[in-house]
């Protein structure tokens, strides 16, 4: 009896592994192996043409003493994250809240808000390049003559604005599903207790959404730290490095330089992932620590 049960269990487990095998294969080849190899490369000098040469922490030392990394890429990346994440979280929350009401045509609005998220980021970037061109739509409408993407004071903010515009739709959907999970009984109870709309939003909706907020902020932070394609298409890190972020610098070292610095780029990538890990842990503590522990 016992053996038969065990066999059934074993069979079930074997089937489970069998079904996950294709995915596991892809996971190990393209993710685990790639990350491991990048980690190895971060301790080497490698120009793609000759075999990698181990040189210990020299790559890390060069990254941390690189002026572009320390004075431009790092501060720019943090600035980008600090501006984009709160704004996109707030805007998508407001949108989700609006879409959760019984508005006319709300499905149409939902589709409209979500559209930018399903469009290729390269296409959106090109559209923004045209909108913000010196003779582009924005300047025509507001009768300005600002060269938005070629100005050190504006280029980065245009990219930030575009990213908020594209990601808010996806985040809105996530919030929306979170909102619909909140039981109506809670709102009814709040209403009986005499809470108005604003109070029930602040004291019922927000606390109940905490896990969703954590998720949205985490995804947002990771996305912001890794921002690349928009910058690649719109400004290539310019003007005067004002839009150079960590990922763009990593790309530049890995592929653009005359002498390829693959090892140094890998070291910077490891540093970037450590930063993301640190920030995520920190924010988990902040969001969880300030209230319920449902996350």
């Amino acid at each position, binding site marked *: 009896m016992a053996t038969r049960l065990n066999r059934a269990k074993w069979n079930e487990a074997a089937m489970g592994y069998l079904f996950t095998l294709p995915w596991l294969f892809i996971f190990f080849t393209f993710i685990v192996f790639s990350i491991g190899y990048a980690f190895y490369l971060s301790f080497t000098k490698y120009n793609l043409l*000759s075999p990698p040469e181990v040189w210990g922490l020299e790559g890390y030392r060069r990254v941390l003493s690189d002026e572009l990394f320390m004075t431009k890429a790092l501060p720019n990346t943090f600035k980008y994250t600090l501006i984009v994440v709160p704004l996109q979280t707030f805007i998508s929350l407001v949108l989700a809240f609006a879409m959760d009401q019984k508005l006319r*045509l709300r499905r149409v609005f939902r589709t409209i808000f979500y559209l930018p998220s399903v469009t290729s980021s390269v296409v959106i970037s090109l559209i923004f390049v045209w909108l913000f061109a010196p003779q582009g739509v924005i300047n025509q409408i507001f009768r300005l003559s600002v060269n938005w993407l070629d100005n050190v004071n504006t280029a980065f903010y245009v990219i930030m604005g575009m990213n908020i515009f594209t990601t808010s739709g996806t985040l809105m959907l996530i919030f929306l599903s979170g909102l619909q999970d909140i039981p109506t009984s809670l709102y009814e109870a709040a209403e009986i207790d005499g809470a108005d709309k604003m109070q029930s939003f602040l004291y019922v909706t927000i606390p109940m959404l905490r896990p969703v907020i954590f998720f949205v902020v985490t995804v947002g932070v990771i996305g912001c730290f890794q921002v690349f394609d928009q910058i690649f298409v719109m400004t290539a890190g310019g003007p005067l490095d004002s839009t150079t972020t960590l990922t763009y610098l990593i790309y530049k070292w890995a592929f*653009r330089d005359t002498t*390829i610095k693959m090892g140094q780029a890998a070291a910077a990538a490891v540093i970037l992932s450590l930063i993301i890990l640190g920030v995520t842990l920190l924010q988990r503590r902040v969001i969880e620590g300030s209230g319920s522990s449902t996350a």
Partner: protein
Amino acid sequence: MNRVFAFLSVLLIAAFALSACAPQAQPTPEKIVETVVVRETQVVEVPKEVQVEKTVEVEKEQTVVRLSGWASSPSETALLESLLYRFSVENPDILVKYEPITGDYKQALLTSIAAGTEPDVYYMDIFWWQELAKNDVLQPLDDLMASSGVKKEDFIPALIDAFTYEGVVYGIPKDFNTLGLFYNKDMFDAAGLEYPTDDWTWDELTIAAEALSDPANNVFGFGVPADPGRFPVFVFQNGGNIMNADFTDTELDSEAAIGAAQFYTDLRAFQIGALPSDLGEGWQGTLFGKGQLAMVYEGGWLIPYLREQFPNTKYGVVMPPAGPGGEGNLIFTVAWGISKNSKNPEAAWRVVDFLTNEASQKTVLESGFALPSRTALKDSDYLKNNPNSAAIFNGSFNGARPFFWGAVGSDVNDQMGKAIERIFKEGQAVADSMKQAAEAVRKALADQ
């Protein structure tokens, strides 16, 4: 409701369709197009009739040679394909597979070399090819050249020397470009000025630029892009250089370079020159075509562009005006190299030899896309009848230096561009900006 959705999806499709019609990247060699798309391999096949004649030996033992390059324009690709077709007719024992790469060519090539899957024959840009030679991934060509009687002297010295590393030839220059002073004839006529000549100097350039400028109407005399592919010409003309002779130090903070930067940036400060972005374009060639810039330094690639996009713009080309230090110009060139891993270097060489022989180069020249690297074509009828192309061709004999700054070339380019941009956009003092650039280049050199 469904109707609304149908309408929205139509909108969405329209958005995608429109975005697909994005204007093509301009034909300037420094412009890097974004996505890497390896086009479907096109096999240039021997036509049926030829195969019938030689069936026995052809069908079994065809040697495959893979050939790759970037595809800068459809017409240029078509030209190469027609040459390869001609080759396949004459050499039925070799099957050439043409695998063009659109997009970031260097990135695609280097990763394929790292993976050991690189093509047998490929383009090498003068700007970075030495990295390939240094890391020993190229086939030395001297013996192969001797085997078919090709001599170094057959090619323009500046070009073949540029593809020689430690005395060994690694690349056969396929064509080249230099910079010429393009001037808009109608604008000169309207201002009552005489057309530029090859004997012009900086003074005449300044005087003409001033007379041709009309800042109120967004018209300027001369284009001054913060472009490391233009500014060095002024340094050479001022008697300076970008790097020292063995590329171990930079001369960007020399008096000659600072003086050149002063002259270059003053043109914009006095509103007789403009950055392309001041006028809302990424490339000054477009502004020249539109008549917003009366004179620009560009290469031969501007000629087919103007013919296609601005057929009504009347223009001429002369060699760049000399500065206080004499003549100066830049040479942009590309060579065919053969991979060291190639299984059939002899077959690969036959392809390279065919593509750079006099007949092929004559075809290229007459198509108007590029200038031939063989000295024998110097006196060709085409150059006699096309003074604009001749000005670009002769530029290579007149104080021209290759567009190459050593192992930290990309850093040098970055720093030069930024030095000019800082002066333009942040009002930094010229000498400080150039010194800052030189320091950054030295740091990159120290980190080699």
